[in-house]
């Protein structure tokens, strides 16, 4: 019964939070209306979301976000130095193929977005069977080290969160 009325609890929470941020005020009236929207929209659109994305360890998400924001700041500074002070001819761009251990589309999307958001690396493509991720690196001497860092730092955590 609950399962039928609230098919996507995370979507409900997200819609409620987004509506309250849009309204930009904290009051019970806004909260109740946000909650109504959060309950009605997933219910009305449930036929287009047949599967609930699996999130086995949601409490690990904040840790991941903190690491991500920290890495964005650190990588920004190092890439800014590279862009401003290094001559174009001295940069060593490289393609990196990252073999994926994660299989769920949501986890791969999160990993690809993470790689693009951290400056210095852009995810460009996935392989036809979804087993590899193609990443372009702005300036690196050791492509294998970048691959290993992405795998151990982000993919391992995403695997814990999603699988």
């Amino acid at each position, binding site marked *: 019964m609950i399962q039928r009325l609230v098919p996507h609890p995370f979507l409900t929470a997200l819609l409620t939070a987004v509506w309250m941020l849009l309204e930009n005020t904290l009051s019970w009236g806004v909260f109740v209306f946000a909650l109504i929207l959060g309950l009605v929209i997933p219910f009305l659109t449930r036929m287009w979301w047949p599967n609930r994305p699996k999130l086995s360890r949601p409490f690990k998400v904040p840790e991941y976000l903190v690491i991500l924001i920290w890495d964005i700041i650190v990588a*920004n500074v190092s890439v800014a130095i590279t862009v401003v002070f290094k001559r174009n001819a001295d940069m060593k761009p490289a393609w990196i193929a990252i073999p994926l251990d994660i299989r769920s589309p949501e986890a791969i999307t999160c990993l690809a977005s993470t790689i693009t958001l951290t400056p210095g690396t852009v995810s460009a493509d996935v392989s036809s069977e979804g087993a590899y991720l193609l990443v372009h690196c702005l300036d690196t001497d050791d492509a294998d080290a970048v691959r290993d860092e992405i795998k151990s730092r982000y993919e391992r955590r995403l695997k814990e969160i999603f699988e």
Partner: protein
Amino acid sequence: MIWDILIAVALVIGAVFTLVGSYGLVKIDRPMSRLHAPTKASTLGVGSLLLASILDAYSSGDGSLHEILVMAFLFVTAPISAHFMAKAHIHRGTVAAAPPTLESGETWACLDKDREEQPADTSA
């Protein structure tokens, strides 16, 4: 006073990274490498400017959290546009070096010739 200093620092940091991102866009000569420059402007640059906006709203007494929403949508959509530009570069062959071939015999999705004939994959 302390608020003004914090806001000014956040604004300057945001402006500097936006400037570096734009400068990189002009300076870097290889198409795929050029894609890296705007990612700085859209993450730390805009993030810092929005932080300044939040701080300003709080210092003047009426808190504002719109900025968190701006940041969230930007962080969700920015990688998608970068992804599309990268795919377009690979398709048109305007990359300095071709992407590596895979040992397993798979190809990259946008180079997969068979896939174009098939109808869109609805299972994923």
